[in-house]
């Protein structure tokens, strides 16, 4: 997009805008952390009670509450919590009794791997489907793809995942239905284990992404410059690749960043079904065992990722707008 080096005046105009977006995202992230902290501290009964069980004496509970800092007022605890979080020390898991940062460091790479492969495949597929639909606007391929993606958006992740298991693990016996991945697993094995989770997640993400890509490309195809090029006799394939795509790339990247946020909701279900040792299944376990420090950290990571994706979408939209760039 920024083929020519931006002139100073463009940079001077763009930088404050982008800095503003980043500051606004950080403010939102701070407010989100307040919401998460407040919601998860509203527990009826508290962690000390839960840890010690029913037989604990009031004195023991009071001592533990003091040790955990639960006897301090809410705002003080929030400041401590946020400060520790910023220093990379989100506390100790109630259930596993080990530092939350260790547990997460163990799981996070797995989730990132799953997300990266899914994103790569989804982007290629979504571009193909989106451009094919946009070129055939109103045609048969377009309406078929429209119905297909519209339906796929509304299908619950666990239906896709169970059908995939049924087809590839139960009937065809091609792929494992459980994705156990350890650091010792080789590359070929890891890819085989990841195949079904990636397939399920891709279905979730690609539908949304393809719809938004189609909208972005179709919007460009309706512009007068496309008609001009056609009247000049430029071949249609050339128009799409060299005239339309450079203009559509900004909105398309914007659409992709937005739809990648669907990965997170999808990962909760998909990681759980396939027993994949990632961050999302960790968070589900934290809810089941009411492990608040772990839950808070997982929620913060997901919300921060979500905000980062939105921020990227925003910044790309700013950079891609020629009126702001010139």
């Amino acid at each position, binding site marked *: 997009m920024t083929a020519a080096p931006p002139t100073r005046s463009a940079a001077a105009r763009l930088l404050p805008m982008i800095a503003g977006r980043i500051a606004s995202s950080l403010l939102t992230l701070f407010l989100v952390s307040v919401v*998460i902290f407040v*919601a998860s501290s*509203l527990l009826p009964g508290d962690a000390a009670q839960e840890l010690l069980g029913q037989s604990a004496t009031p004195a023991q509970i009071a001592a533990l509450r003091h040790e955990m800092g639960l006897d301090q007022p809410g705002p003080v605890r929030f400041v401590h919590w946020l400060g520790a979080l910023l220093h990379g020390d989100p506390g100790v898991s109630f259930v596993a009794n080990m530092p939350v940062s260790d547990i997460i460091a163990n799981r996070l790479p797995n989730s990132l791997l799953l997300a990266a492969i899914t994103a790569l495949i989804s982007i290629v597929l979504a571009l193909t489907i989106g451009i094919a639909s946009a070129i055939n606007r109103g045609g048969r391929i377009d309406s078929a793809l429209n119905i297909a993606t519209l339906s796929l958006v*509304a*299908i*619950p992740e666990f*239906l896709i995942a169970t059908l995939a298991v049924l087809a590839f693990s139960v009937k065809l016996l091609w792929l494992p239905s459980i994705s156990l991945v350890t650091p010792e697993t080789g590359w070929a094995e890891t890819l085989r284990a990841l195949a079904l989770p990636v397939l399920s997640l891709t279905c979730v993400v690609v539908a949304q992404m393809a719809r938004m890509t189609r909208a972005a490309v179709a919007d460009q195809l309706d512009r007068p410059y496309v008609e001009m090029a056609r009247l000049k006799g430029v071949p249609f394939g050339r128009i799409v690749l060299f005239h339309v795509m450079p203009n559509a790339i900004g909105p398309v990247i914007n659409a992709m960043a937005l739809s990648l946020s669907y990965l997170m909701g999808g990962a909760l*279900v998909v990681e759980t079904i396939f027993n994949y040792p990632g961050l999302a299944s960790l968070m*589900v376990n934290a809810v*089941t065992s009411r492990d608040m420090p772990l839950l808070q950290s997982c929620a913060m990571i997901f919300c921060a990722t979500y905000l980062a994706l939105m921020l990227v979408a925003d910044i790309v939209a700013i950079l891609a707008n020629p009126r702001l760039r010139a």
Partner: protein
Amino acid sequence: MSGALAMRVRNMRLSGRIGLALVLFWLVLAVGGPALAPHPVGAFIDQEVFSGPGRTFWLGSDYLGRDVLSRVLWGSRYTVFLALGAALLAVLGGTSLALFSAIRGGWTDEILARAMDTLNSMPSKIFALVLVAAFGSSLTLLLLIAAFIYIPGNYRIARALAINLVAMDFVQVARARGEGAFHIARYEVLPNMIHPLLADTGLRFVFVVLLLSGLSFLGLGVQPPYADLGSLVRENISGLPMAAPAIIVPALAIASLTVGANLLIDALKPGGKA
């Protein structure tokens, strides 16, 4: 009115009519399903577990030998009504706040919009998990949590619509007449945004169905003895290797409801081809 409605349906494209049929089908089942169920919902009636479809049990039996058809009929009631209730509550809450925001303007609007933006910038399922962990998951709580999560999304859309309307001449005239804020919201602004709001209610309904059945599937939504369609998928997950109808049917049921609703909303969209 009913004539116009019939016209609308006749002019709808095929996918829209299929969607309408699916939505009506599930609405009727949710209302009348328990009366149609051939067996009590908790009764153990089959010696075999995960049996396939047969003459006595149309959809086979589940992991405890209960009738799948009866359980799906009951489960659809929880899925449909919880989602309908939550979607209506979310739109009621979101639109009321949006009207308040748009008519008041100034600081009230600023603060409300910022708060809603914050809530909107958490992925809905992640937010739902935090709320379920904090409050629990009784049926009432699930209804309220789902409604609460989708208020900000509706607020954003309703506020955008309302702000445009508030700037129009007829609202200025009403203000000059000395009408109160409630009158302006209820009689001047709201009637002019009802169509997009209805479409948004439909979308919220689809979101809530997916959210709640996802939660139930993870074991964090509707708890026994109640079971919605998502819980049915979860409890029968061990029947997957046998391709038992007990797991396939409820999962397909959810998909047909949400896909149907989506197709219907898409066909009703103004500007869509008739």
